[in-house]
């Protein structure tokens, strides 16, 4: 009887293991992609240059240092610290986000001209980030559970084997009706995303334009988001990218919002 039980358990366990390995479900692909895209390393730093290009070709620059630290498991809490270099009217401003899955962020803004740290209302994660075509969610990630994911097909994209995932928001008040993502099978990074509006027309396209290996982590160092309806595009490039640099928890505080340490923001 005892032996029978052991065999039974072994069979069940091996089925469970093999089963999950074979059926790489859409949810799992998206989780892995989120881990590769937004949660790599214990912490992360980059000098971010955003170029906002209007339909008429006018360019505006948003330049900042972005620091991120993970708290807890993949897909869990994160803290972001941003210091702005450009444009001139926001220079020395700092911005801090405590990101929680499944609830609203906490956000703080420091305005140097009046030496004031203020909490800012942050209900809509689909709002534009600093006026760009990227939303807050595009910067810090969208909860996997907010969408229904399905694996549409597998195909080569830009010479890379990739999964094509369709993600449909569960909530009705999202600006897109569904999104198609091309996820690189090798490194799980999104190579391209297409956002379709309520009428089912393609209106926004994300593309990963350069991927580099940083400390063993494949990292998208150039990306763009193009709004096909407005003709507005945002191009983003990362420099001075680094991981596991030992960012202290205390950085994410009012003290350092007011006096950002040079060693972290340069």
């Amino acid at each position: 009887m005892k032996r029978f039980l052991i065999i039974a358990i072994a069979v069940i366990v091996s089925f469970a293991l093999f089963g999950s390995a074979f059926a790489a479900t859409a949810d799992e692909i998206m989780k892995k992609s989120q881990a590769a895209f937004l949660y790599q390393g214990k912490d992360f730093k980059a000098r971010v240059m955003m170029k906002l290009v209007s339909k008429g070709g006018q360019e505006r620059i948003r330049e900042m240092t972005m620091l991120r630290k993970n708290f807890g498991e993949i897909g869990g809490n994160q803290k972001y610290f941003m210091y702005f270099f450009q444009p001139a009217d926001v220079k020395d401003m700092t911005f801090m986000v405590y990101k929680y899955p499944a609830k609203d962020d906490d956000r703080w803004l420091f305005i140097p001209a009046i030496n004031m740290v203020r909490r800012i209302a942050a209900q809509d994660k689909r709002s534009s980030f600093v006026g760009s075509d990227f939303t807050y969610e595009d910067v810090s990630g969208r909860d996997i559970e907010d969408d229904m994911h399905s694996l549409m097909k597998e195909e080569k994209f830009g010479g890379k084997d990739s999964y094509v995932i369709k993600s449909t928001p569960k909530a009705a008040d999202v600006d897109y009706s569904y999104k198609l993502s091309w996820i690189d099978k090798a490194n799980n990074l999104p190579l391209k995303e297409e956002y379709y509006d309520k009428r089912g027309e393609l209106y926004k396209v994300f593309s990963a334009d350069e991927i580099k290996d940083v400390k063993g982590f494949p990292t998208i160092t150039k990306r763009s988001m193009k709004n096909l309806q407005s003709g507005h595009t945002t191009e983003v490039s990362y420099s001075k990218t680094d991981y596991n640099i030992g960012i202290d928890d205390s950085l994410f505080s009012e003290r350092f919002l007011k006096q950002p340490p040079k060693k972290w923001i340069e």
Partner: protein
Amino acid sequence: MNKPFHKRHRETSATPSALCGETREFRLNPAQLCVYFLLLFFPVLCLPSFSYAADVSLHGFFQGNYSLGTRSNPDGGDFKWAEERVQLKLDANKEPFRLFLKTDAFYDHIDRKADMELREGYIDSTASKWDIRAGRQVITWGVGDLIFINDVFPKDYEAFFSGRPMEYLKKGVDGLKIGAYPEFASFEFIAIPIFEPNNYPDSKRFYMFDPMPNVTNREEKDPASNFENTEFAARAYRDIAGSDASIYFYRGFYRKPYMIPDDLNNTTKITFHYPKLSVYGASLQGRALDGVVSFETGHYDSRQDRKGEDYTVPNSQTKALIGYQRQLWEDFTIGVQYFTEYMHNYSEYKRAQPGGLPKDRKIGQLVTVRLTQMLMHQTLKLSLVSFYSTSEGDYLINPEIKYNFSDHIWAAIGSNIFGGGEKWSQFGQLAKNDNVYAQIRYEF
């Protein structure tokens, strides 16, 4: 906005400069300005050698700022404000030190004078668990939006009512700030040896209530700069259950002048003074109700007249505000606040208040609404800020449009509309000062 004008004791027309705290301003002719700028730029000229030792940056702006009254000023002029201004910000870092200088030079078309001012100038020294800032610095406390309870630091209401950029509402203080950051909470300790009063509108440019307009002999008495008069302020803050909690303490002076007539029945001279004040307060701000909820309270201990029997000194008060801010749709935010202040020993106050002077209410109340809509990739900002006192019936409405033409140039136009209430109430007395303003800035 915490009652920029007091109803009993009125800032008046005869000696506006004495009330404006112009101790830090000095007049310069163009030649002197040039010399000053050379001195200011001297560190920059030395940059090549200096930069080996420190990390130096220089930024600033050129700005035009004009405000036109909808009717002529008391002195016959049309403009509440008309100036061109240049600001330079020098920032030099060499761990663990930092030097920061923010200097403005401007030409005022109304008074036809060139002036300059050191807006901020301090040295920071930073260690892992503490830091020190010494020099002229701006300190902002509390969670109110243009309502100040625990922010007991000097304000420039003339700037606010004249349509200058918001940063000019805050004045720096000359003092020392020590920050301490043990694990369980953070602390700020501030000592200010040199008293700096609030700045109120110039009575040549603004119509304001004056209970004794015929008395022209006026004098202002600042607290002397000595150890006993050094102002102290402390704040302790930390996170409590995901909200930002602070407690505050201040021991110093009211920054609004209160008047002492030499003889009530036959006044020939008015002396303005700044009575002693202590403030004990607390604030809490956190995410709630799909938005940000703020709460702040403070007790104003009027140390020179705790019984409330001296009409030349304000009575003690307890003040509180509650605020709520929420993003209703993309790039649109609404903020509402309710503020109330309660006067202690009101019956003593009523008894002591001389007959000819208007009386404050026992309970004052104010509601504010701020609407902000950003458009065109957050380069166009429409905002509406309004104050309405439910106890007095007076109001201030400030609509503004700001557009960033490029990453370097922005311009704003707006207006300040005052009215309602009594001829002595906070905004009611400004009813004849409605103005339309323009700000244009090139930033580098």
